[in-house]
């Protein structure tokens, strides 16, 4: 297999990692909503933690995207 097509296949495989990040983010917001339904008055206090957790989880999915971009454009 020549390197050019291997790069394209690798980039496609790397993009699958973004799906895993989507599962993590959905889990996070789902748990937050479940907790907010049980204890609505405590929900606003934890909103900052929710947003922080979302950004940190999303970062891992974007790491996978960066590997794909690296393969496509930089290597």
């Amino acid at each position, binding site marked *: 297999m020549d390197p050019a097509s291997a790069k394209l296949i690798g980039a496609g495989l790397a993009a699958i990692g973004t799906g895993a990040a989507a599962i993590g983010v959905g889990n996070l917001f789902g748990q937050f909503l479940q907790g907010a339904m049980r204890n609505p008055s405590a929900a606003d206090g934890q909103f900052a933690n929710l*947003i*922080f957790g979302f*950004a*940190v989880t*999303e*970062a891992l999915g*974007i*790491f996978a*995207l*960066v590997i794909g*971009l690296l393969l496509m*454009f930089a290597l």
Partner: protein
Amino acid sequence: MPDPIHQFDIHPIVPIKFGSWDLSFTNSSAFMALAVLLIAGFFMVSLRTRSLVPTRLQSLAEIAHEFVASMLRNSVGREGMRFFPFVFTLFIFIFACNMLGMIPGAFTVTSHLIVTAALAAIVFLTVLVVGFTKNGLSFLRLFVPEGVPIYVLPLVTVIEVISFLSRPISHSVRLFANMLAGHITLKVFGGFVVMLLGAGSFAALAPLPLLLAIALTALEVLVAFLQAYVFTMLTCIYLNDALHPGH
């Protein structure tokens, strides 16, 4: 298909060579200087009157101050407030650079790994220096968490050291990757609009990627603020580890 990657090219505006070092004033430097000028100008103008009951512009500056101050106070406590100038500078600089990149045709300073890696390296070095000067060798208690059974302790310590050393990597790559991916996506969808307009009979479909590009721009403005907030929040957490090791 227009290339989404050439928007990140660096062009020297004033070439400066110092021996074999290239210290040119580039478009990246120009946007960093612009960000600093805008920040300094905003704070000088809004805090000029210094009234006890703030004017609208002064209350913007006070909201920004209180936002970062409460973040730092909640993470580190009272003695962490001596790092407030550093943390506030980080937040405001990253926020301004991210937002300047949202202007069409502008250059996003933080979309280069070297910029975010320099910022993350400064944070990491600060944590190490402060941790060792304030705690001495008991700073290494950070890697030995309490309540761990003795037979698994060596493994946990190794894992803790590796995750500590990987902090500057994830800290820098998170901001870099978010900015890079966001701007590439915007460029790609902009390219779709132009391609559809030039495809004759499909020109009627051109508003669809345009609407998506508008929604993505709104998302990218949110991400610009969010990534500055997350970078600063993690800085506060790492500083807490330096000042109070072993949780």
